[in-house]
């Protein structure tokens, strides 16, 4: 039985789609929120380019050693570090990056906690890092390359179909 390249491509596309949609649905329905890791402050647990998924957690259930995603005090971004000390009564805690020699310079408050890290996926964060680094020129170049690839593929498929049909008629003669 001859395997058609177009069927192989279709099957690969189907597998990737099922995995991607399943993964997104899993996070959506479980309430997990993803963050792209952009620095190496938590090496070796996770590195730049990984994605971490966090779930909302009650402050009382957190303990030293847990890795949490925390909003900066001015709300300008997030950091994900390990809790090294915690004061439940005051609602404050201190954090530290695993790759850092010292604790983070400021305590964080319970209101800043976005959630506890549930799991991480290597390299997935690069999608966000790559897309956020794109400017108009890069997007234009990428679109142009995609269009050229699509046109080339379409042309090749059409040519292979034509040559296939010619070959069939020759055999009949």
């Amino acid at each position, binding site marked *: 039985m001859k395997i058609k390249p177009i069927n192989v491509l279709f099957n690969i596309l189907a597998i990737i789609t099922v995995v991607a949609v399943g993964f*997104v649905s899993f996070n959506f329905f479980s309430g997990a929120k993803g963050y*792209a890791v*952009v*620095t190496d402050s*938590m090496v070796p647990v996770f590195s730049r380019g990984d994605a971490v998924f966090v779930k909302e957690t009650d402050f009382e259930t957190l303990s030293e050693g847990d890795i949490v995603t925390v909003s*900066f005090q001015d709300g300008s*971004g997030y950091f994900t570090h390990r809790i090294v000390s915690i004061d439940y009564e005051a609602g404050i805690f201190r954090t530290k990056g695993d790759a*850092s020699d010292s604790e983070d*310079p400021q305590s964080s408050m319970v209101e800043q906690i976005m959630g506890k890290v549930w799991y991480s996926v290597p390299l997935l964060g690069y999608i*966000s890092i790559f897309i956020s680094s794109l400017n108009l020129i890069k997007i234009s170049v990428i679109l142009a390359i995609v269009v050229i690839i699509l046109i080339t593929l379409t042309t090749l498929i059409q040519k292979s179909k034509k040559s296939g049909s010619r070959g069939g008629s020759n055999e009949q003669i």
Partner: protein
Amino acid sequence: MSRFKKISAIIMIFALVMCTGYFSMMAPTTAWFYQAQSINGTNNKFVFADFDIDGDYSIEKVLVFDGATAYEDKNETMFDSVVKVIDVDVENDGGLPARIYATVKNESSAKGLKYFYYTDDMLVNGSVKETIYSALKNNVNDKALNNYNVGEDGNGGHFVKINPGEKKTVKVALWVEYDECESELAFADSPWESINYNINVTMTATQDVDGAMTR
């Protein structure tokens, strides 16, 4: 390719685009809060990447100031000619915008050493003196200069923003207030007297958006 497969392919591509959109919307996280490094003395180059700085470089620079300007230039009209400028090539080899802070420590007993750091794009009429007046809003005194250099609490002040992949030359201008130095530079009989200042220049790279760093 059957009609069913064509429609399926279109739906799958649409679903993949939506999934890519989901992944691309993930907010950035993890941060270095603080990294500091003295400049490399051999080539005055400070390169960092994602604030993961290896090595421990330090240098003691010796600046020699002579007394000529104290005698000949009461109004500091020759300031730009005698001010000493250290150039440090700073390169952001990482993937995040960064702030560079500079601090100069006077490690000698002689007093009166002042500094001001800037980049060429700040220059006013090509003059360091005019640039200092402009940066301090013509309020040129020790307090204003200190606020500019390190901030009121020693944890802020002026910074140079450097984007990923960008290189800039940070210039540190140094001079001596001769009436503060309490040495032969101020009281010498000859303008050819000079005094050495041992200094240490430290540059600190921090993430641009943290707002939570000390130095």
